[in-house]
Protein backbone atom coordinates (compact mmCIF):
# COMPACT_ATOMS: atom_id res chain seq x y z
CA UNK A 1 0.00 0.00 0.00
CA UNK A 2 1.04 3.62 -0.60
CA UNK A 3 0.23 6.42 1.83
CA UNK A 4 0.84 9.91 0.51
CA UNK A 5 1.24 12.78 2.98
CA UNK A 6 1.00 16.31 1.59
CA UNK A 7 2.90 18.70 3.85
CA UNK A 8 5.69 18.27 6.40
CA UNK A 9 4.72 20.71 9.11
CA UNK A 10 3.80 19.72 12.66
CA UNK A 11 0.79 17.66 11.58
CA UNK A 12 2.12 16.14 8.35
CA UNK A 13 5.50 15.24 9.81
CA UNK A 14 3.85 13.65 12.86
CA UNK A 15 1.50 11.66 10.59
CA UNK A 16 4.35 10.48 8.33
CA UNK A 17 6.55 9.45 11.25
CA UNK A 18 3.84 7.34 12.91
CA UNK A 19 2.70 5.86 9.60
CA UNK A 20 6.21 4.62 8.86
CA UNK A 21 6.69 3.34 12.40
CA UNK A 22 3.43 1.38 12.27
CA UNK A 23 3.62 0.18 8.67
CA UNK A 24 7.32 -0.69 8.42
CA UNK A 25 9.03 -1.63 5.15
CA UNK A 26 6.07 -3.50 3.63
CA UNK A 27 4.24 -0.30 2.78
CA UNK A 28 5.35 2.98 1.23
CA UNK A 29 5.03 6.34 2.93
CA UNK A 30 5.61 9.29 0.61
CA UNK A 31 5.87 12.90 1.80
CA UNK A 32 5.44 15.84 -0.57
CA UNK A 33 6.45 19.25 0.78
CA UNK A 34 7.50 22.42 -1.08
CA UNK A 35 10.20 23.20 1.50
CA UNK A 36 13.29 21.10 2.09
CA UNK A 37 13.11 21.99 5.79
CA UNK A 38 11.08 21.03 8.83
CA UNK A 39 10.70 24.08 11.05
CA UNK A 40 9.58 24.28 14.66
CA UNK A 41 7.24 27.21 14.06
CA UNK A 42 6.69 28.29 17.71
CA UNK A 43 10.37 29.31 17.98
CA UNK A 44 10.13 31.72 15.04
CA UNK A 45 9.39 34.38 17.65
CA UNK A 46 12.93 34.05 18.99
CA UNK A 47 14.37 34.30 15.47
CA UNK A 48 12.33 37.49 15.08
CA UNK A 49 14.10 39.14 18.03
CA UNK A 50 17.56 37.78 17.21
CA UNK A 51 17.72 35.28 20.08
CA UNK A 52 17.91 32.23 17.79
CA UNK A 53 19.31 31.61 14.32
CA UNK A 54 17.11 29.94 11.67
CA UNK A 55 19.46 26.90 11.80
CA UNK A 56 18.43 26.33 15.42
CA UNK A 57 14.76 25.87 14.60
CA UNK A 58 14.92 23.90 11.35
CA UNK A 59 16.53 20.83 9.79
CA UNK A 60 16.58 19.20 6.38
CA UNK A 61 13.80 16.64 5.93
CA UNK A 62 15.65 14.45 3.41
CA UNK A 63 18.22 13.23 5.94
CA UNK A 64 15.59 12.14 8.49
CA UNK A 65 13.29 10.60 5.90
CA UNK A 66 16.15 8.65 4.34
CA UNK A 67 16.92 7.14 7.76
CA UNK A 68 13.26 6.29 8.33
CA UNK A 69 12.70 4.89 4.82
CA UNK A 70 10.16 7.57 3.84
CA UNK A 71 10.19 8.77 0.22
CA UNK A 72 10.51 12.56 0.11
CA UNK A 73 9.59 14.74 -2.83
CA UNK A 74 10.31 18.46 -2.55
CA UNK A 75 7.29 19.60 -4.47
CA UNK A 76 3.89 21.25 -4.10
CA UNK A 77 0.54 19.60 -4.72
CA UNK A 78 -1.30 21.02 -7.73
CA UNK A 79 -4.36 18.77 -8.10
CA UNK A 80 -5.94 15.72 -6.50
CA UNK A 81 -7.50 12.98 -8.63
CA UNK A 82 -9.22 10.71 -6.07
CA UNK A 83 -10.65 8.38 -8.74
CA UNK A 84 -7.59 8.34 -10.98
CA UNK A 85 -8.15 8.85 -14.70
CA UNK A 86 -8.28 6.85 -17.96
CA UNK A 87 -4.71 5.63 -17.58
CA UNK A 88 -4.30 5.40 -13.79
CA UNK A 89 -6.83 3.37 -11.81
CA UNK A 90 -5.82 4.47 -8.29
CA UNK A 91 -6.05 7.95 -6.84
CA UNK A 92 -3.15 10.25 -7.54
CA UNK A 93 -1.90 13.76 -6.86
CA UNK A 94 -0.21 15.89 -9.49
CA UNK A 95 2.78 17.57 -7.90
CA UNK A 96 5.18 20.21 -9.20
CA UNK A 97 8.77 20.07 -7.97
CA UNK A 98 10.17 23.12 -6.17
CA UNK A 99 13.73 21.91 -5.62
CA UNK A 100 16.45 23.71 -7.62
CA UNK A 101 17.39 20.69 -9.71
CA UNK A 102 13.84 19.68 -10.68
CA UNK A 103 11.98 23.01 -10.45
CA UNK A 104 8.82 23.09 -12.57
CA UNK A 105 8.77 19.35 -13.40
CA UNK A 106 5.41 17.72 -12.71
CA UNK A 107 4.68 14.14 -11.65
CA UNK A 108 1.63 12.04 -10.87
CA UNK A 109 2.09 10.47 -7.42
CA UNK A 110 -0.28 7.53 -6.87
CA UNK A 111 -1.72 6.65 -3.47
CA UNK A 112 -4.01 4.24 -1.66
CA UNK A 113 -4.46 6.67 1.25
CA UNK A 114 -4.00 10.42 1.18
CA UNK A 115 -3.29 12.72 4.14
CA UNK A 116 -3.66 16.42 3.33
CA UNK A 117 -1.55 18.31 5.86
CA UNK A 118 -0.68 21.27 3.67
CA UNK A 119 -1.15 23.84 6.45
CA UNK A 120 -2.19 27.41 5.76
CA UNK A 121 -1.51 29.61 2.80
CA UNK A 122 -0.39 32.97 4.18
CA UNK A 123 -2.91 35.12 2.36
CA UNK A 124 -1.13 38.48 2.43
CA UNK A 125 -2.95 39.46 -0.77
CA UNK A 126 -6.25 39.59 1.13
CA UNK A 127 -5.09 42.92 2.63
CA UNK A 128 -3.75 45.59 0.30
CA UNK A 129 -0.13 46.46 1.05
CA UNK A 130 0.32 43.75 3.71
CA UNK A 131 3.31 41.48 4.05
CA UNK A 132 7.06 41.10 3.55
CA UNK A 133 8.23 42.92 0.44
CA UNK A 134 5.39 45.40 0.94
CA UNK A 135 4.76 47.45 4.07
CA UNK A 136 4.71 45.01 6.99
CA UNK A 137 6.68 42.11 8.41
CA UNK A 138 5.70 38.61 9.49
CA UNK A 139 6.99 35.91 11.86
CA UNK A 140 5.01 33.09 10.23
CA UNK A 141 8.11 31.36 8.80
CA UNK A 142 11.81 31.35 9.63
CA UNK A 143 12.62 33.44 6.54
CA UNK A 144 9.97 36.02 7.48
CA UNK A 145 11.19 36.03 11.09
CA UNK A 146 14.79 36.59 9.93
CA UNK A 147 13.63 39.57 7.90
CA UNK A 148 11.65 40.87 10.91
CA UNK A 149 14.80 40.70 13.05
CA UNK A 150 16.77 42.71 10.46
CA UNK A 151 14.07 45.40 10.55
CA UNK A 152 13.89 45.31 14.34
CA UNK A 153 17.67 45.69 14.56
CA UNK A 154 17.45 48.75 12.30
CA UNK A 155 14.79 50.23 14.60
CA UNK A 156 16.97 49.51 17.64
CA UNK A 157 19.90 51.29 15.98
CA UNK A 158 17.71 54.35 15.41
CA UNK A 159 16.60 54.27 19.04
CA UNK A 160 20.21 54.05 20.18
CA UNK A 161 20.68 57.38 18.39
CA UNK A 162 17.75 58.82 20.34
CA UNK A 163 15.07 58.44 17.67
CA UNK A 164 11.60 57.34 18.79
CA UNK A 165 10.03 54.32 17.11
CA UNK A 166 6.39 53.25 16.81
CA UNK A 167 5.74 49.50 16.74
CA UNK A 168 2.43 48.12 15.50
CA UNK A 169 1.91 44.42 16.21
CA UNK A 170 -1.18 42.24 15.75
CA UNK A 171 -3.55 41.01 13.07
CA UNK A 172 -3.40 42.24 9.49
CA UNK A 173 -6.88 41.29 8.33
CA UNK A 174 -10.38 41.42 9.79
CA UNK A 175 -10.45 37.62 10.16
CA UNK A 176 -6.83 36.66 10.90
CA UNK A 177 -6.09 34.09 13.56
CA UNK A 178 -2.81 33.20 15.35
CA UNK A 179 -3.11 36.16 17.77
CA UNK A 180 -0.89 34.15 20.14
CA UNK A 181 2.17 34.51 17.88
CA UNK A 182 1.66 38.25 17.52
CA UNK A 183 1.09 38.54 21.28
CA UNK A 184 4.42 36.78 21.91
CA UNK A 185 6.19 39.00 19.44
CA UNK A 186 4.87 42.21 21.05
CA UNK A 187 6.00 41.00 24.49
CA UNK A 188 9.41 39.88 23.22
CA UNK A 189 10.02 43.25 21.54
CA UNK A 190 9.08 44.99 24.78
CA UNK A 191 11.46 42.69 26.72
CA UNK A 192 14.35 43.27 24.30
CA UNK A 193 13.90 47.05 24.41
CA UNK A 194 13.83 47.01 28.23
CA UNK A 195 16.97 44.88 28.24
CA UNK A 196 18.68 47.58 26.14
CA UNK A 197 17.13 50.38 28.25
CA UNK A 198 15.46 51.79 25.15
CA UNK A 199 11.83 51.23 26.11
CA UNK A 200 11.29 54.93 26.87
CA UNK A 201 11.78 55.61 23.16
CA UNK A 202 9.27 52.99 22.04
CA UNK A 203 5.55 53.24 21.51
CA UNK A 204 4.20 49.70 21.12
CA UNK A 205 0.61 49.27 19.97
CA UNK A 206 -1.34 46.04 19.71
CA UNK A 207 -4.01 45.96 16.99
CA UNK A 208 -6.42 43.05 16.85
CA UNK A 209 -9.69 41.82 15.39
CA UNK A 210 -10.62 40.33 18.79
CA UNK A 211 -13.80 41.56 20.48
CA UNK A 212 -11.87 41.63 23.73
CA UNK A 213 -8.16 41.10 24.35
CA UNK A 214 -7.32 37.53 25.30
CA UNK A 215 -9.86 36.07 22.88
CA UNK A 216 -7.04 34.40 20.86
CA UNK A 217 -9.58 33.05 18.38
CA UNK A 218 -11.01 30.64 20.93
CA UNK A 219 -13.57 32.94 22.50
CA UNK A 220 -11.24 33.74 25.40
CA UNK A 221 -10.97 31.59 28.51
CA UNK A 222 -11.18 31.81 32.27
CA UNK A 223 -8.35 31.00 34.65
CA UNK A 224 -8.18 30.54 38.41
CA UNK A 225 -5.83 33.23 39.66
CA UNK A 226 -5.31 34.99 42.97
CA UNK A 227 -8.51 33.66 44.50
CA UNK A 228 -10.65 34.68 41.53
CA UNK A 229 -11.84 33.13 38.29
CA UNK A 230 -10.46 35.70 35.88
CA UNK A 231 -11.07 36.09 32.13
CA UNK A 232 -8.06 36.06 29.80
CA UNK A 233 -9.21 39.60 28.88
CA UNK A 234 -7.95 40.85 32.26
CA UNK A 235 -4.90 38.58 32.09
CA UNK A 236 -3.89 40.02 28.69
CA UNK A 237 -4.73 43.65 29.48
CA UNK A 238 -2.67 43.36 32.66
CA UNK A 239 0.38 42.11 30.75
CA UNK A 240 0.02 44.91 28.20
CA UNK A 241 -0.46 47.59 30.87
CA UNK A 242 2.62 46.32 32.72
CA UNK A 243 4.67 46.54 29.52
CA UNK A 244 3.30 49.94 28.42
CA UNK A 245 1.71 48.40 25.35
CA UNK A 246 -1.35 50.29 24.10
CA UNK A 247 -4.10 48.41 22.31
CA UNK A 248 -6.67 48.78 19.58
CA UNK A 249 -9.28 46.01 19.60
CA UNK A 250 -12.25 45.15 17.34
CA UNK A 251 -10.18 46.38 14.39
CA UNK A 252 -10.08 44.91 10.89
CA UNK A 253 -7.01 46.10 8.99
CA UNK A 254 -7.96 46.41 5.31
CA UNK A 255 -5.10 48.38 3.80
CA UNK A 256 -1.49 49.18 4.68
CA UNK A 257 0.58 52.00 3.21
CA UNK A 258 4.18 52.82 4.11
CA UNK A 259 4.00 53.78 7.79
CA UNK A 260 0.20 53.74 7.95
CA UNK A 261 -2.35 50.97 8.62
CA UNK A 262 -5.98 51.60 7.71
CA UNK A 263 -8.60 49.74 9.74
CA UNK A 264 -12.33 49.54 10.22
CA UNK A 265 -13.72 49.09 13.71
CA UNK A 266 -16.60 46.89 14.71
CA UNK A 267 -18.52 50.14 15.30
CA UNK A 268 -18.11 50.88 11.59
CA UNK A 269 -15.58 53.72 11.90
CA UNK A 270 -12.60 54.00 9.55
CA UNK A 271 -9.35 54.90 11.30
CA UNK A 272 -5.58 54.79 10.82
CA UNK A 273 -2.59 53.78 12.94
CA UNK A 274 0.90 55.04 12.15
CA UNK A 275 4.04 52.91 12.55
CA UNK A 276 7.76 52.72 11.93
CA UNK A 277 7.78 48.92 12.34
CA UNK A 278 4.74 46.69 11.80
CA UNK A 279 4.36 42.93 12.19
CA UNK A 280 0.83 41.94 11.27
CA UNK A 281 -0.41 38.35 10.89
CA UNK A 282 -2.19 37.75 7.54
CA UNK A 283 -5.42 35.89 6.95
CA UNK A 284 -4.99 32.16 6.37
CA UNK A 285 -6.60 30.13 3.61
CA UNK A 286 -6.13 26.67 2.19
CA UNK A 287 -3.76 26.15 -0.73
CA UNK A 288 -4.85 26.39 -4.36
CA UNK A 289 -5.26 22.65 -4.91
CA UNK A 290 -7.87 21.54 -7.44
CA UNK A 291 -9.72 18.21 -7.44
CA UNK A 292 -10.94 16.26 -10.47
CA UNK A 293 -12.99 13.10 -10.92
CA UNK A 294 -12.18 10.21 -13.27
CA UNK A 295 -13.66 12.05 -16.27
CA UNK A 296 -11.62 15.15 -15.51
CA UNK A 297 -14.63 17.11 -14.21
CA UNK A 298 -13.76 19.73 -11.59
CA UNK A 299 -14.92 18.49 -8.16
CA UNK A 300 -12.95 21.05 -6.11
CA UNK A 301 -16.14 22.29 -4.41
CA UNK A 302 -17.00 18.71 -3.39
CA UNK A 303 -13.63 18.07 -1.75
CA UNK A 304 -12.79 21.56 -0.47
CA UNK A 305 -14.72 24.29 1.36
CA UNK A 306 -14.83 27.81 -0.18
CA UNK A 307 -11.87 28.85 2.00
CA UNK A 308 -9.86 26.07 0.25
CA UNK A 309 -9.51 23.93 3.38
CA UNK A 310 -10.53 20.28 2.92
CA UNK A 311 -13.97 19.15 4.07
CA UNK A 312 -13.91 16.37 6.66
CA UNK A 313 -16.40 14.71 9.02
CA UNK A 314 -17.57 18.01 10.54
CA UNK A 315 -21.13 19.37 10.55
CA UNK A 316 -20.95 22.26 8.07
CA UNK A 317 -24.63 23.20 8.45
CA UNK A 318 -24.91 26.97 8.87
CA UNK A 319 -26.36 27.75 12.30
CA UNK A 320 -26.32 30.62 14.79
CA UNK A 321 -23.66 30.87 17.50
CA UNK A 322 -26.15 29.84 20.19
CA UNK A 323 -26.71 26.48 18.46
CA UNK A 324 -23.06 25.58 18.01
CA UNK A 325 -21.99 22.32 19.62
CA UNK A 326 -18.74 20.42 20.10
CA UNK A 327 -20.34 17.71 17.96
CA UNK A 328 -20.02 20.06 14.97
CA UNK A 329 -16.27 19.48 15.11
CA UNK A 330 -14.64 16.54 13.34
CA UNK A 331 -13.53 13.36 15.09
CA UNK A 332 -11.74 11.28 12.44
CA UNK A 333 -10.81 13.94 9.82
CA UNK A 334 -11.92 11.62 7.02
CA UNK A 335 -13.22 13.18 3.80
CA UNK A 336 -16.97 12.54 3.40
CA UNK A 337 -16.45 12.34 -0.37
CA UNK A 338 -13.59 9.80 -0.45
CA UNK A 339 -13.00 7.49 2.50
CA UNK A 340 -9.28 7.08 1.78
CA UNK A 341 -8.64 10.82 2.11
CA UNK A 342 -7.99 12.71 5.35
CA UNK A 343 -7.08 16.29 6.25
CA UNK A 344 -5.10 17.15 9.37
CA UNK A 345 -3.83 20.20 11.23
CA UNK A 346 -4.71 23.53 9.67
CA UNK A 347 -5.65 21.86 6.35
CA UNK A 348 -9.07 20.65 7.52
CA UNK A 349 -12.05 22.95 7.11
CA UNK A 350 -13.44 23.89 10.53
CA UNK A 351 -17.25 23.84 10.77
CA UNK A 352 -17.27 27.44 11.99
CA UNK A 353 -15.18 29.78 14.08
CA UNK A 354 -14.80 29.39 17.86
CA UNK A 355 -15.09 33.11 18.58
CA UNK A 356 -18.54 34.57 18.06
CA UNK A 357 -18.93 36.01 14.53
CA UNK A 358 -19.25 39.80 14.54
CA UNK A 359 -20.03 42.25 11.75
CA UNK A 360 -19.61 46.01 11.54
CA UNK A 361 -22.60 48.13 10.43
CA UNK A 362 -20.89 48.21 7.01
CA UNK A 363 -21.18 44.42 6.81
CA UNK A 364 -17.47 43.66 7.39
CA UNK A 365 -16.86 40.48 9.36
CA UNK A 366 -14.38 41.37 12.15
CA UNK A 367 -13.54 38.41 14.36
CA UNK A 368 -10.73 35.83 14.61
CA UNK A 369 -10.77 32.60 12.60
CA UNK A 370 -10.28 29.48 14.74
CA UNK A 371 -6.70 28.53 15.66
CA UNK A 372 -5.70 24.89 15.03
CA UNK A 373 -1.98 24.98 15.55
CA UNK A 374 0.47 23.23 17.84
CA UNK A 375 -0.77 20.48 20.06
CA UNK A 376 -4.13 19.82 18.32
CA UNK A 377 -2.36 19.62 14.94
CA UNK A 378 0.12 17.07 16.25
CA UNK A 379 -2.57 15.00 17.96
CA UNK A 380 -4.78 15.01 14.84
CA UNK A 381 -1.81 13.98 12.66
CA UNK A 382 -1.06 11.10 15.00
CA UNK A 383 -4.60 9.71 15.28
CA UNK A 384 -5.08 9.87 11.50
CA UNK A 385 -1.81 7.96 11.04
CA UNK A 386 -2.82 5.32 13.60
CA UNK A 387 -6.26 4.87 12.01
CA UNK A 388 -4.84 4.51 8.48
CA UNK A 389 -2.20 2.05 9.71
CA UNK A 390 -4.95 0.04 11.41
CA UNK A 391 -7.03 -0.01 8.23
CA UNK A 392 -4.09 -1.18 6.13
CA UNK A 393 -3.17 -3.92 8.59
CA UNK A 394 -6.71 -5.17 9.17
CA UNK A 395 -8.26 -4.43 5.79
CA UNK A 396 -11.36 -2.68 7.13
CA UNK A 397 -12.32 0.92 7.70
CA UNK A 398 -12.69 1.61 11.40
CA UNK A 399 -11.50 4.53 13.44
CA UNK A 400 -10.07 3.31 16.73
CA UNK A 401 -8.73 6.78 17.53
CA UNK A 402 -10.56 10.10 17.54
CA UNK A 403 -9.58 13.68 18.33
CA UNK A 404 -12.43 16.14 18.71
CA UNK A 405 -11.28 19.68 19.53
CA UNK A 406 -14.31 19.94 21.79
CA UNK A 407 -12.94 17.15 23.96
CA UNK A 408 -9.22 17.79 23.60
CA UNK A 409 -7.29 20.28 25.72
CA UNK A 410 -4.33 22.38 24.64
CA UNK A 411 -1.36 24.00 26.30
CA UNK A 412 0.00 27.27 25.00
CA UNK A 413 3.28 28.68 26.25
CA UNK A 414 3.61 32.33 25.34
CA UNK A 415 7.15 33.62 25.42
CA UNK A 416 7.44 37.06 27.00
CA UNK A 417 11.23 37.35 27.03
CA UNK A 418 14.26 35.16 26.31
CA UNK A 419 16.69 34.77 29.22
CA UNK A 420 17.53 31.80 31.45
CA UNK A 421 17.43 33.95 34.61
CA UNK A 422 15.26 36.97 33.77
CA UNK A 423 13.09 35.58 30.97
CA UNK A 424 9.34 35.29 31.19
CA UNK A 425 6.66 33.08 29.73
CA UNK A 426 2.91 32.92 30.16
CA UNK A 427 1.70 29.34 30.51
CA UNK A 428 -1.91 28.85 29.51
CA UNK A 429 -3.88 25.64 29.28
CA UNK A 430 -7.48 25.20 28.22
CA UNK A 431 -9.64 22.10 28.28
CA UNK A 432 -11.33 21.66 25.89
CA UNK A 433 -10.11 23.90 23.04
CA UNK A 434 -13.67 24.41 21.76
CA UNK A 435 -15.97 25.48 24.63
CA UNK A 436 -18.52 22.84 25.62
CA UNK A 437 -21.43 24.88 26.96
CA UNK A 438 -23.52 21.76 27.61
CA UNK A 439 -20.91 20.13 29.83
CA UNK A 440 -19.53 23.33 31.38
CA UNK A 441 -22.45 25.80 31.30
CA UNK A 442 -20.73 28.48 33.39
CA UNK A 443 -17.30 28.86 31.77
CA UNK A 444 -17.53 26.64 28.70
CA UNK A 445 -14.44 24.78 29.85
CA UNK A 446 -13.17 22.73 32.78
CA UNK A 447 -11.91 25.45 35.10
CA UNK A 448 -9.77 22.88 36.95
CA UNK A 449 -7.90 22.14 33.71
CA UNK A 450 -7.31 25.78 32.87
CA UNK A 451 -4.09 27.46 33.96
CA UNK A 452 -2.71 30.97 33.51
CA UNK A 453 0.72 31.68 35.03
CA UNK A 454 3.45 34.19 34.21
CA UNK A 455 7.03 33.63 35.22
CA UNK A 456 10.51 32.42 34.43
CA UNK A 457 9.23 28.84 34.59
CA UNK A 458 7.14 29.57 31.47
CA UNK A 459 10.32 30.49 29.57
CA UNK A 460 12.03 27.32 30.75
CA UNK A 461 9.04 25.25 29.62
CA UNK A 462 8.98 26.88 26.18
CA UNK A 463 12.72 26.33 25.76
CA UNK A 464 12.41 22.74 27.00
CA UNK A 465 9.60 22.11 24.51
CA UNK A 466 11.72 23.60 21.71
CA UNK A 467 14.44 21.01 22.27
CA UNK A 468 12.03 18.18 23.06
CA UNK A 469 9.94 18.63 19.90
CA UNK A 470 13.03 18.98 17.68
CA UNK A 471 14.37 15.77 19.26
CA UNK A 472 11.09 14.08 18.42
CA UNK A 473 10.89 15.49 14.89
CA UNK A 474 14.45 14.38 14.12
CA UNK A 475 13.57 10.85 15.16
CA UNK A 476 16.18 10.66 17.88
CA UNK A 477 16.01 7.75 20.40
CA UNK A 478 12.57 7.11 21.93
CA UNK A 479 10.99 9.91 19.87
CA UNK A 480 7.66 8.07 19.78
CA UNK A 481 7.36 8.23 23.58
CA UNK A 482 7.22 12.03 23.52
CA UNK A 483 3.69 13.45 23.40
CA UNK A 484 2.39 15.78 20.71
Amino acid at each position, binding site marked *: MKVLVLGAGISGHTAASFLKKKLGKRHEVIVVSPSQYYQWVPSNIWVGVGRMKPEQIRFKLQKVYKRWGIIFKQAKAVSIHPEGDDSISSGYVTVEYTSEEKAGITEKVEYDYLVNATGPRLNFDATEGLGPGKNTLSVCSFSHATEAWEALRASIEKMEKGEKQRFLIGTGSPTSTCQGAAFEYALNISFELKRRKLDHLAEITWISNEYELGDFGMGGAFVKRGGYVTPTKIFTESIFAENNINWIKRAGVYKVEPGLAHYETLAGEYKTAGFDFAMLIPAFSGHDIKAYDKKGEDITSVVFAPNKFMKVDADYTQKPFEEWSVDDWPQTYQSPAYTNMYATGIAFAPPHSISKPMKSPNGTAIFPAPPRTGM*PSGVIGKIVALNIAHQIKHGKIEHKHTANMGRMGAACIVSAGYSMTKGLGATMTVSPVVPDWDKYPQWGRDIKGTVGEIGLSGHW*IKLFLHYMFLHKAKGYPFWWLLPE
Partner: protein
Amino acid sequence: MTDPKVIRAYKDEYYPPVPTAATKRMRTNIFIQLYKFLMLNYKIMRIVVKGHS
Protein backbone atom coordinates in the same frame (compact mmCIF):
# COMPACT_ATOMS: atom_id res chain seq x y z
CA MET B 1 12.50 70.51 24.85
CA THR B 2 10.73 68.27 27.36
CA ASP B 3 8.11 65.71 26.43
CA PRO B 4 4.50 66.72 27.06
CA LYS B 5 3.03 65.53 30.36
CA VAL B 6 1.13 62.25 29.90
CA ILE B 7 -1.79 61.44 32.18
CA ARG B 8 -2.90 57.82 31.87
CA ALA B 9 -6.17 58.26 33.76
CA TYR B 10 -9.32 57.45 31.77
CA LYS B 11 -7.37 55.50 29.16
CA ASP B 12 -7.89 51.76 28.64
CA GLU B 13 -4.42 50.93 29.92
CA TYR B 14 -5.12 52.75 33.21
CA TYR B 15 -7.58 50.18 34.54
CA PRO B 16 -6.10 46.64 34.39
CA PRO B 17 -4.42 45.19 37.49
CA VAL B 18 -0.64 45.46 37.35
CA PRO B 19 1.83 43.38 39.37
CA THR B 20 3.47 44.74 42.48
CA ALA B 21 7.24 44.72 42.89
CA ALA B 22 6.95 41.61 45.10
CA THR B 23 4.97 39.76 42.41
CA LYS B 24 7.59 40.68 39.82
CA ARG B 25 10.36 39.38 42.08
CA MET B 26 8.52 36.10 42.58
CA ARG B 27 8.25 35.67 38.80
CA THR B 28 12.01 35.33 38.53
CA ASN B 29 12.79 33.76 41.92
CA ILE B 30 14.65 30.57 41.05
CA PHE B 31 13.19 28.45 43.86
CA ILE B 32 9.59 29.52 43.34
CA GLN B 33 9.98 29.09 39.61
CA LEU B 34 11.51 25.63 39.95
CA TYR B 35 8.42 24.59 41.89
CA LYS B 36 6.18 26.24 39.26
CA PHE B 37 8.12 24.51 36.49
CA LEU B 38 7.34 21.11 37.99
CA MET B 39 3.74 22.00 38.84
CA LEU B 40 2.99 23.46 35.39
CA ASN B 41 4.58 20.49 33.62
CA TYR B 42 2.36 18.18 35.66
CA LYS B 43 -0.75 20.20 34.70
CA ILE B 44 0.27 20.27 31.03
CA MET B 45 0.87 16.50 31.05
CA ARG B 46 -2.63 15.96 32.46
CA ILE B 47 -4.07 17.86 29.50
CA VAL B 48 -1.79 16.03 27.06
CA VAL B 49 -2.70 12.57 28.35
CA LYS B 50 -6.42 13.38 28.21
CA GLY B 51 -6.03 14.60 24.60
CA HIS B 52 -4.58 11.32 23.32
CA SER B 53 -7.48 8.92 22.91
